[in-house]
Every structure is written in structure tokens, then in C-alpha cells.
């Protein structure tokens, strides 16, 4: 009896934007010509690449069209969940994989694509093997990896380093030694958009990996009891607070948001010397930062090793891809259209080229051949090498965990960075939600 009420409540929420074609996104069959629906994120230049891919598909397949609707990031996250809960999902569900995908799977809302990938081996083998981790739930594949991968990168302002006559850090010890030097020169060592919380999380992801290896967080993900109390975990949390106490981050970092790109502005205006951030910020710094990127003032490197740490310094963290799932509520015709789209259009040659032009690396083996001649060639090759050489490409924690655990995590990370809880308190707060 609960379900109809749930559906009714969810339907009351928002009616949302209507699809481009004007047809209801209800996924109910009966229309004369079958049309699949597809929702994805707005914001250029990514929106343009997605739109053109769909347009190419529609041109080539007049009898099996895809209607698309674009939405803003945060609005989309709420809308897609409501729509799926109400059985009104689009045929193709765009997402980040991991913990959120798991909730869809548990509610039986997305198609199992394992056998489809076995029949279409060529589709699977073109893509980075590391991109399938976040699409795989309990050994079955529920999403097609798509678009680009975005490792977290340590960016730095070369001019700031010239000013104090220092070299980029090669270890955690170097970082701690650089902090007082930059502060003395009136430059903040690190920029950070701390109000967004996941920005802080990227630091912990690297510290955990460098100190204890990927196994430490894997234990959390696997639901092992008291996994957050692992000695490497406590050490990483302690080192984090040491950096904060040493004024490693710009004053007022906890009120800066990443959405406004103010954290990037601090780096390219020279107010901060370094910034740990997603690879996607390269594109926006190139657009907003004047000649900062084109003038060769932006440096980038993988996160340096921590002395005595067990983790491989080649490991990286971030988003190993974006993910396209098929709604199990869609009609058989719609599902066929979606699969055809996956097999023929997603990440085909033209799309790979377009993604590379946005300054991002598509998750296709040999994509580096598309970088030649691009103005961002060096950066693209750097990212490609990180991703192809990494022994472990860990998914961002907030995407990997269930939404419930992720919210508690982000909350506690914010408090850890405020220094209002100790590493031990952090661990015990987090241990309480392991497996939820």
C-alpha cells in the first residue's frame, strides 16, 4: 500500500521542466513512434558535446529518436531521484555511478547490462577498464561508462613559486615546509572552497591513499566494522589538522564555495600558491584566468607521497567517468533505442575529439591520439598518463558511498576542518554509519 502513496507524494513535489519534444517523460508506451528520453546536465562546454551526440544519433536513426532535457547539477540530483521514485524516470539515466547507482539497483529501477556488454564486447573493450568499477554493483554492470574521467590534480601557480624561490613539493614534508614560506610572503599556501565540503574531502582521499593505500577506504566501502579507526586513517586525519593549524589554507576557506569558482580565482590571481582540485577546473581557469593558463603559469602534478606511507604515489582519485543507465520502467522499444545509442554513438570518434577539445580526457583507450595539435595537449597527456598508469583510480568518496553515509561524511569533514572535532571523534562518528 505504501508505494502508490509514495508515488503520489513524489509526483506532488515538482513537475519539472518538460522535455524538449513536449512529450511526457513518463516512459509509458503507446506512442506511435517510440521515443527514448534522456536527461543530462547543462553548463557549457559539456552540454554542447552531449547535445551534439544526441543530434547525430537522431539524424542517423529517424525511426528511433531520443528526446533530451538539460538540467542544472543540483536541481538534477533532486529531480532525477524524485522521478525515479515516482516511476517517471527518463529512459537514459545520466549519473556518477557508485553509491547512488546502488540505490537505484536496490530499488530495481535500472537495467542489468552485464549480458549486453558480453554480447557487445567491442563496446566494452574500447573503454578504460578502471571506468567500470563504479558501474558495477555486486558483480553486475548496471551502467555504461561515458564521457570523461576527472582525476584530482595538485595545481600550482608558477609565479608564486618563483616569487619565493621554491620548488613544487615532492613530499608531504615539502608541503609543510612550504607553508610558512608562503605565509611569510603574504601568499596563502593553498586555496580551498571549504563551504562545498567535498573540496575538503579530496585532501583526505589522497592522504588516506598515500599513507595507508587504497585498502583503508576500501574497508570502509566494504562495511568493515570500525574501519575508520585504522591507524593510517587516524594518521591521515591528524596530518590534515596539522596542515590546517599551520595556516596551510587561505583565511576564510570555510566560507568559500567551489560553485562560484572563487577558489580557482584565488589561484590564478596569485593570492594562493596551490590548489588541490578536479581536472575539470583546468578548462574554467583557462576561460576565466586571462592569460594564466595560456601564458604557461599553471603548473600541475599528482599528489606527492607522504613519508613512510604505503600507498603507491601513482594512484589517483576522482571521477573515473560519468555513467548512463537504462530505466527498467522504459518500454522495450525505448530500451532498444538506448542500447543502440550506447553502441553506436556514445564516445564515437567525433565525440572523443569534442571532449578532448574541452580539455578533458575521454575514457577511451588510445584517446591520446586525439590530443595531437590541441592547445591543451600537454595537460591532456598528463591526465591521460595519470589515469592509464594509476594502479588504483579510486572513486570520490561521496559518490562511492550511499547518499546517507556520504552526507554524514561531508558533515564530519566540515567539522574536522573547523577543528571542532578531533581525528578520534571523526572516526567514531563515521564508524557509526558504516554499512548504512
Amino acid at each position, binding site marked *: 500500500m505504501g508505494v502508490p502513496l509514495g508515488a503520489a*507524494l513524489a509526483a506532488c513535489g515538482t513537475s519539472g521542466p518538460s522535455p524538449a519534444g513536449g512529450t511526457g517523460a513518463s516512459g509509458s508506451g503507446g506512442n506511435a513512434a517510440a521515443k527514448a528520453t534522456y536527461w543530462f546536465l547543462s553548463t557549457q562546454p559539456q552540454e554542447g558535446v552531449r547535445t551534439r551526440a544526441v543530434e547525430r544519433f537522431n539524424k542517423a536513426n529517424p525511426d528511433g529518436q531520443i528526446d533530451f532535457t538539460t538540467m542544472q547539477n543540483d536541481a538534477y540530483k533532486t529531480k532525477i531521484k524524485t522521478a525515479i521514485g515516482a516511476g517517471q524516470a527518463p529512459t537514459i539515466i545520466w549519473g556518477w555511478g557508485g553509491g547512488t547507482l546502488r540505490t537505484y539497483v536496490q530499488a530495481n529501477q535500472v537495467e542489468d547490462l552485464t549480458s549486453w556488454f558480453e554480447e557487445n564486447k567491442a563496446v566494452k573493450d574500447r573503454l578504460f577498464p578502471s571506468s567500470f568499477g563504479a558501474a558495477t554493483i555486486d558483480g553486475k554492470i548496471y551502467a555504461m561508462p561515458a564521457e570523461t574521467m576527472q582525476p584530482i590534480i595538485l595545481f600550482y601557480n608558477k609565479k608564486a613559486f618563483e616569487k619565493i624561490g621554491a620548488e613544487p613539493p615532492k613530499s608531504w614534508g615539502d608541503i609543510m615546509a612550504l607553508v610558512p614560506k608562503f605565509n611569510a610572503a603574504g601568499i596563502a599556501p593553498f586555496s580551498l572552497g571549504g563551504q562545498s565540503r567535498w573540496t575538503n574531502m579530496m585532501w583526505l582521499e589522497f592522504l588516506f591513499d598515500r599513507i595507508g593505500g587504497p585498502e583503508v577506504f576500501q574497508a570502509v566501502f566494504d562495511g568493515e566494522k570500525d574501519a575508520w579507526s585504522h591507524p593510517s586513517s587516524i594518521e591521515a586525519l591528524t596530518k590534515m589538522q596539522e596542515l590546517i593549524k599551520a595556516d596551510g589554507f587561505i583565511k576564510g576557506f570555510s566560507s568559500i564555495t567551489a560553485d562560484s569558482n*572563487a577558489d580557482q580565482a584565488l589561484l590564478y590571481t596569485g593570492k594562493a600558491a596551490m590548489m588541490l582540485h578536479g581536472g575539470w577546473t583546468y578548462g574554467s581557469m583557462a576561460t576565466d584566468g586571462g592569460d594564466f593558463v595560456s601564458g604557461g603559469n599553471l603548473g600541475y602534478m599528482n599528489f606527492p607521497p607522504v613519508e613512510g606511507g604505503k600507498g603507491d604515489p601513482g594512484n589517483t582519485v576522482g571521477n573515473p567517468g560519468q555513467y548512463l543507465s537504462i530505466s527498467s520502467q522504459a518500454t522495450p522499444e525505448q530500451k532498444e533505442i538506448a542500447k543502440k545509442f550506447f553502441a553506436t554513438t556514445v564516445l564515437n570518434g567525433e565525440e572523443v575529439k569534442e571532449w578532448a577539445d574541452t580539455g578533458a580526457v575521454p575514457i577511451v583507450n588510445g584517446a591520446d591520439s586525439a590530443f595531437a595539435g590541441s592547445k591543451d595537449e600537454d595537460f591532456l597527456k598528463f591526465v591521460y598518463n595519470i589515469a592509464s598508469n594509476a594502479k588504483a583510480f579510486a572513486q570520490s568518496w561521496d559518490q562511492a558511498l550511499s547518499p546517507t553515509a556520504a552526507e554524514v561524511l561531508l558533515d564530519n569533514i566540515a*567539522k574536522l576542518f573547523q577543528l571542532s572535532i578531533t581525528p578520534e571523534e571523526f572516526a567514531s562518528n563515521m564508524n557509526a554509519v558504516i554499512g548504512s
Partner: protein
Amino acid sequence: MPALLIFVAFGVIPLVGVLFLSFTSWDGLGVIQMSGFTSWRAVFADPGLMHALWVTLLVMAASWAVQTPASILLGVFLAGQQRYRAVLAVLYFIPLLLSSAAIAIAYKALLDPNFGLGAGLGIELLIQDWLGEPVLAFSVVIFVVSWQFIPFHSLLYQGGVRQIPRSMYEAAEIDGAGRTRKFFSITLPQLKYTIITSSTLMVVGSLTFFDLIFVLTAGGPGDATRVLALDMYKRGFQANLMGPASAIAVILVLVGLALALFLRRLGGRDANASQMEGV
């Protein structure tokens, strides 16, 4: 009858739905499962609820204490018939025309310690970590809320003051009462019901502050400005815990009703008694 139907459809049914959901566990996606008092126990065992309740009460008290005196004084001032006051009144009401989200975005940009007003003009005093220190962030929230709503409450008081019969003041003047005396002995007592109305709006309204705080601080730093409504949103729509979020929604409704009733009581038994002359 139509009004009743609308009230039932959009007021009562959702309320019952929320009450029902608070006794279930639901992640917004899957099957709704009855779970008895689990959500309620989880909510009450969580120190986060008490904290959010405390922050909400602080916001309520502080914004009332700041807004009421300011609104009364402004209202009395604007009730005068002089032309320059009418001009000023128009200016004062501008914040009322802006949406909360727009106000929050504007203040966030102005208060940015690196790119905001202080840094732009080079005024040291303004370069503070306004939204990054718990006490400062709380104060900023109160300030912005007051900035936004004082115009509205001034409008209420302006109307209230204009209702006071001139003859009362004339009588007082004959008795030799000064400005201050007139204000405390006539204006303020005559505004009693306006004060109650305005306070009810403020108090109940501050229970539901969401958009402004969400955009301005997102409840931060840490949980320094996480009010109950924000806590509910985060639990329900970010953590996918619809059960506990519904429980908080029910608590919000109860607190709101209790406060509204309490304030009506203050208005008291003589609510229908008139203090007008000749009635």
C-alpha cells in the same frame, strides 16, 4: 467550500502524508516500509536535532529582538505625513522586492574576504571571515534576515500607527506630555495587536528560514547555522532519509503551532475589546 477543498488538498493531506512517512523508512526510491518509531528514536538520539532546534530558537529570538524595535521606530517615523518620509519609505521597502536567494547571493559576494567589499575597497575592518567563523556567520544571518524583513514589519507598524486616533495625542499634549512620553504611553500600548501580529509572523516565519541560510552559509561553518528546516532538507533530500526528515517536519509543525497559539494567548481574552474612543 472551495477554500476548504484547497486547504484539505494542499494543507491537510500532505501533513497526514508526512506524519505517515515519519513512521516508515524510505529512501525516496524504493518500497516504503513501516518501521514504527525507529525514525523518531533516531531523530531524538541524534545530537544534531537538539543542536538544530537550539540554533532555530536562537535565530528566532535574535531576529525578533533585532527586528521589533527597529521596525517599530521606522514604522512610527514613516507614519508621519511629511513628503521626505514618503520618499524614504520607498527606499526602505526595496529589500522587500528582492527574493531571498538573490539577497543571499549578493551578501555572499559582498562579504567574501578575498574578493568582496572589504577587499575591493581596502577596508581592513570589513575583511573578516564573515561566513567562516561560527559567531560571525550567525550574526551575518541575523543581519541579513533583519535587513530583508524590517521593511515588511515597518509597513505593518506604519499602518498601525496611522490607526491611532489623533485625539489621543491632542489630549496628551494638553496634559503636557512630551514626545517620549507620548510614544511610551500612547503609541506603544495602542500598537499592542500590531506587535502581536508582527511577532507571530516573525517567530513562525523564522522557523521556516531555509532559502536564505541555504544559499548564504549552507548551514555552516560546521553546523553553526544549521536550522531545523535545513536539517530536514539535508536528511531528506541529501541523505535520502525520508523517515527522520518527516519526523523533523512534524516537529516543525508542532513547534510552529504551539508558538502561534502562545502568541495568540498573549493577545489575550480582550482581543475583541476596543480601545478606540467612543466605542
